[in-house]
């Protein structure tokens, strides 16, 4: 609803908004943040969240390109190593949260600093070259093709595929039932034989791997692996997920809601720039929307409870 109003409003104010060039632009970047939000949606539904996604987003492509540029390994191997690294980060996050019972806020905040620190240390703060490579892998991940005037990146198709699969997992599968139960009432879920710890660790890994994949996608598209890229993404991602209706306290969340949340925030950023609001004012709008959404949620909740 909000999304439709938003698109309509921007289209009226600025004819450029609906131009093929702008839509291509919008659809190029959206999948990268979007992939992270998919993992985050499942993780938050299970009652945890991950602040280290932005760092993993920045560091994974650095691993891949450093290995490639120093001729240690071919690109494909670098790709696999980068994803394996993400698995380890997710495993570590999950282990700290479930076995040591440290809140995910603290664990993943620590991981954010560690991973970002490694990225800066390894590269001395300089971006890694990526334009020398030309591998089929790059085409598969972000190859672009045109439909009329519209340029589409393959990353959009991957995003749609991931969204469909994870949406299916959350609502139709046994894993989805466990994810919601783990976030809703972990003690009760455990008492029913749900493997809560296992579920949460798996979701930490999934989120980290999707972040790494998104980071690699981004590095190929912009032809640079910058150790600072992805800074601040964690909060934007969480904002998108929350706007999409996932409860910050766990137990409830939908993939379709998150996809809409992603589109709302991305079109908003794009649109307010086009209608002439300074880009720096973007955060005012994001913050405003989050507050408004939360107010709406709590109002609906209260009305619902008054009814029973």
């Amino acid at each position, binding site marked *: 609803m909000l999304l439709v109003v938003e698109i309509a409003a921007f289209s009226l104010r600025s004819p450029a908004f609906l131009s093929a060039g702008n839509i291509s632009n919008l659809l190029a970047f959206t999948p990268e943040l979007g992939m992270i939000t998919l993992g985050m949606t499942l993780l938050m539904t299970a009652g945890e969240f991950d602040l280290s996604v932005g760092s993993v987003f920045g560091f994974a492509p650095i691993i891949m390109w450093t290995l490639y540029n120093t001729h240690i390994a071919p690109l494909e191997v670098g790709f696999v190593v980068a994803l394996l690294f993400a698995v380890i980060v997710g495993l570590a996050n999950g282990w700290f949260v479930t076995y040591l019972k440290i809140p995910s806020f603290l664990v993943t905040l620590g991981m954010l600093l560690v991973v970002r620190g490694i990225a800066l240390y390894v590269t001395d703060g300089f971006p890694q070259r990526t334009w020398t490579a030309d591998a089929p892998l790059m085409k598969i991940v972000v190859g672009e093709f045109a439909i009329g005037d519209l340029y589409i990146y393959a990353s959009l198709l991957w995003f749609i595929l991931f969204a469909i699969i994870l949406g*299916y997992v959350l609502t139709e599968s046994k894993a989805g039932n466990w994810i919601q139960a783990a976030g809703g009432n972990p003690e009760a879920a455990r008492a029913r034989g749900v493997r809560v710890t296992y579920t949460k660790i798996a979701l930490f890994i999934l989120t980290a791997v999707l972040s790494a994949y998104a980071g690699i996608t981004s590095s190929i598209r912009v032809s640079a692996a910058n150790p600072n890229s992805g800074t601040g993404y964690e909060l934007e991602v969480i904002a998108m997920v929350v706007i999409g209706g996932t409860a910050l306290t766990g137990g409830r969340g939908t993939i379709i809601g998150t996809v809409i949340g992603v589109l709302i925030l991305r079109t908003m950023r794009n649109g307010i720039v086009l209608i002439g609001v300074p880009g720096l004012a973007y955060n005012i709008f994001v913050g405003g929307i989050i507050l408004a959404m939360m107010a709406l949620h709590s109002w609906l909740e209260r009305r*619902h409870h008054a009814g029973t």
Partner: protein
Amino acid sequence: MPEELVRMDRINKFFGRVQALNDVTLSVNRNEIVGLLGDNGAGKSTLIKILSGALPADSGDIFVHGNRVKIRNTTDAMALGIETIYQDSALISQLSIARNLFLGREPLKSPRFFDRLDQDTMNEVARKLLKQVGIKKEIPPTTPISALSGGERQAVAIARAMHFESELIILDEPTNNLGVEETQGVLRFVRGARDSGHSCILIAHNIYHVFQVVDRIIVLRRGKTVADDIDPKRTTIEAVESIITGMPISA
């Protein structure tokens, strides 16, 4: 001679230096409803937690159908047919009735693409079960638990225990926080459970409720069994009260 279903033999449990259970023995027969009574701190909950796998015993044996068993966690207990319904029902309030009923034992549908849930079966069975446990209102099985009343939640928990053919259903204070009518509903389920071949252990503060439904009363006091064969039809509430408190019937 009635057939013995579960037997807990000389169970001991310490919390630090405090002995919560001292050589407690408890047995439940088939189709028998046992009331477990005792004052606060008598060890009722500890005993039940050991039987349901939530706490380990320090010593003592548990037999099911005469076979010695090890109950390490709640999954073990459920596999042996022992189902516990706690005060807070242990339901996930965000999930639907059907999803709660099958949580941890979900029916799957082929093709098994990512363990697909068989939601039609889940909803179908849930609808039938709700009728069985006496919910007359038409509640769709997709309703989240958070929209149900306290009694309806207990009913869902009991339905779950009955569906998975638990031989022994343990109800820990099932009537707390329930209205009069809902309490009657729960007590009716307990009577119904015996008729459909289940055994029950009923723990309640309210002796009147226990008297209404059980076949036999066991009393714990300070971690010891002080009575294990009280027939509610041949005794008075006052007499049982005096056993619970350990004081003679006062004038």
